[in-house]
């Protein structure tokens, strides 16, 4: 549900980042962590719905999904986890810190030539 307000935030940031007299926006690149609570397909749909018949129409939201990565506080190993267990894959400890997966960032705007 909150993908709509997130898509609106992305569009606000894009609009304020564009220089005067800019070319048409081709791609907006964002990074979405798997633990960010945002569903990529839903976000794309909301983005396209908002830009329909505006100056941004035709721009694509390009999403880089960031995996959930943890670092073990006991053996220092880094693991990527796919299931919700925050457990070191090397030593099975649950004493781990999150190093990626919560991202929700705009990285680049690509304009047409």
């Amino acid at each position, binding site marked *: *549900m*909150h993908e709509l*307000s*997130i898509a609106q*935030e*992305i569009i606000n*940031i894009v609009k304020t*980042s*564009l*220089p005067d007299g800019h*070319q048409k926006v*081709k791609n907006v690149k*964002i990074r979405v962590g798997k*633990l*960010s*609570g*945002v569903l990529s397909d839903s976000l794309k749909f909301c983005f396209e719905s908002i830009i329909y018949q505006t100056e941004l129409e035709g721009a694509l939201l390009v999403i880089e999904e960031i995996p959930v990565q943890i670092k073990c506080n006991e053996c220092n190993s880094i693991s990527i986890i796919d299931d*919700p*267990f*925050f*457990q070191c894959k090397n030593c099975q400890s*649950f*004493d*781990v810190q*999150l190093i990626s997966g*919560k991202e*929700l*960032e*705009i*990285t*680049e*705007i*690509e*304009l*047409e*030539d």
Partner: protein
Amino acid sequence: MPVITIERKVLEKNDVIANQNREKFKSKNLFVMNFVSSPGSGKTSLVEKTIEFSRGKFKIGVIEGDVQTNLDAERVNKFNVPVVQIVTNGGCHLEANLVRDAYKNLENEDFDVLIIENVGNLVCPSSYDLGEDIKVVILSTTEGDDKPLKYPAMFRNASVLIINKIDLLPYLDCNIEEMKKNALSINQQLKIFEVSCKTGEGLSEWIEWIQKNVGKS
């Protein structure tokens, strides 16, 4: 192809206001808790019981968040504590600016602990910092012991888990040990309290824990 590199957080506007809220709360020496859960787990009951059991120990102010109605603020108002209601009109979570504006109505009141009761939803509220010290996730025994695994972001971001409705355990298939194991597998640091807002069981321990945090923010 011309490229503009920006590297900005999508929710930066919210985060900036959340940090302003945090500074403000700190200057008032408030301990601020953001109550999050699915609908019907007992958030408002926990607010009521926390007020009731804290009498004579510390003072509480409340911001109530709901999609519609002032019913929760009316419930809390019966306890004669400062309370303000946010109605999101369909919005599925509270945002930092809503809390900032609501707090303006409480600023001149005298209390030590601010409870923000978020909209009942285990997904969206985990993405929005409100300026709180901690998130408290409430999970009731009727929701099943596998719930933490289904909503890992919320359980990872919370500092405290309140398992409510433990008086119903004899009638349910919920395995409370399994529930705790699942929650701790997501967040080993979670402080867990088992309570019943109906019978009052476990609430004294919860109040003692809050009291330890009062004035420390």
